[in-house]
């Protein structure tokens, strides 16, 4: 399964959630993932979603924080 996080394509296991996409994004970028629980995630239409949302429902997400 593929999903774009801030335009970076992430490949994940089937059944992954947005949380897993952000964990993978942090791992690839080499940044601390401890802040992901507090960030706000938006779908490609600009709607807020949450970390437990199925990644399969979102082909692209966007996050806005200073760290990520």
């Amino acid at each position, binding site marked *: 399964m593929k999903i774009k996080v801030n335009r970076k394509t992430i490949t*994940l*296991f089937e*059944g*992954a959630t947005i949380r897993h*996409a952000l964990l993978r994004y*942090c791992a690839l970028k080499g940044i601390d993932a401890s802040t992901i629980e507090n960030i706000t995630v938006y779908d490609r239409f600009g709607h*807020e*979603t949450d970390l*437990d949302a199925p990644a399969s429902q979102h082909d692209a997400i966007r996050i806005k924080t200073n760290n990520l």
Partner: protein
Amino acid sequence: MKKIFITSLLMLATITGMAKERKEVHILSANDMHAAIECFPRLGYVADSLRALYPDLLILSAGDNRSGDPLNDMYEIPAYPMVALMNMVGFHATTLGNHEFDSNQYGLARLIDLSTFPTLCANTHPDPKFKLHLRPWHKFDVNGITVGIIGAVGLGQLGIPESHPQKMTDIKFSDPYESIKQYEFLRRECDVVVLLSHLGYKEDVEISAKLPWVDLIVGGHSHTQLKGGEMHNGILITQNTNRLKRVTHTTLVLEDGKVVRKTAENIEIRGGKNENKIIKEVVRYFSENPAFARVLAQATTPFSSYEELGCLMTDAYVAEGKAELSFQNAGGVRYSTHAAGAFTMSDVLKLDPFQNEAVELNITGKELTDMIIKCYDNDNQLMPYVGGMTAEYTLDPSTRKIKKLTLIGKDGKKLNMKRTYKVITNSYTSAICPTTRQDEGHSIGRITAELIIDYLEHQKQVSYQGRTCLKEIKK
């Protein structure tokens, strides 16, 4: 004078007769509640308040009522607390979310029977042996207005909802749109038609173009926070993020039996002050779940290190995940000592509290080695615990990076780097290990804590004193 008076009376009667009959339907809807039982006192208060204003308030759920809190999901009757609380709040209907199938066929049938509201799903066709009392649709009389509600669940890549496939054996699923359109006759029989959808926002928008005869889509699955509702193709679509952060109050205005206006607003639930005190007491009762004190196995010797408990966890993944090998991040083992004696459900949920899903991968020995090294790098340089094998490793003394890693199978031989093994890990570990493996794996539809619980129950007695799965080779 008399003539003028009679004429005026006749005109007034005519005008009164021409005035359109105006009625309203009020709907309070939730989606993807995911066992947020702690929010029910607040939800109960909001429902009571709206019902005081609108006695015929309809309360609906767009599915995924369960899966998210062990207090609910591991109750003696799994997921019963949510059903009991939804009964108390006065829900009128729910559709099936993919996570409703986490209860398995018979468990779901029991929950449906315990519900005081119908479960609606037009595209789920269970074998009669399960006695799954589903209905595709249901009609409600709301103060003289007939409201028809149809339910539907989204299907994943395998053509079934995203849960463990074994929990859906002998249940057939049909295309949501093809199933829903069979019930277009409801438009003729009802004043209002609502689709209770667990298809996801994108699909709701797409399907709205094909269902002009529907007035409202109460959506779920994608956890999409809409500002009240959105109009697409003349249909109002609502949805909120998960775990009862918010719910939606929708108002449909009808004139002469036709919907002429649709509006929706969000109501904050999580963190709100006013609560229904009776429901709060019931939540407190469920929170003291006696099932958590249930003894799963006896530890015949004490556990005295993270590694011994880590070995227990990875053994459980191999045995209950029916895998050859397993591994998991060291940071996911949350305590280091356990006295000899009873190992309870509560102990397991403290040991593995993160609700991580078990993920199955079919990867080569080389790909597994790469994953373990990456896991070490991205988990604060902590060596992951392994099952079905031992890991011998050498660290660079200055950088603490792994210089060499050898994985040795139970037969004492090194793993074949080219052979493909069936491996279980947890979803966190899988996510933090970006490698070039061919198979990213798939969730098996069970959380890792469930595997540990089943393993302990099957073992009855366990002893891990002195047990190791990691060996650092120091020169």
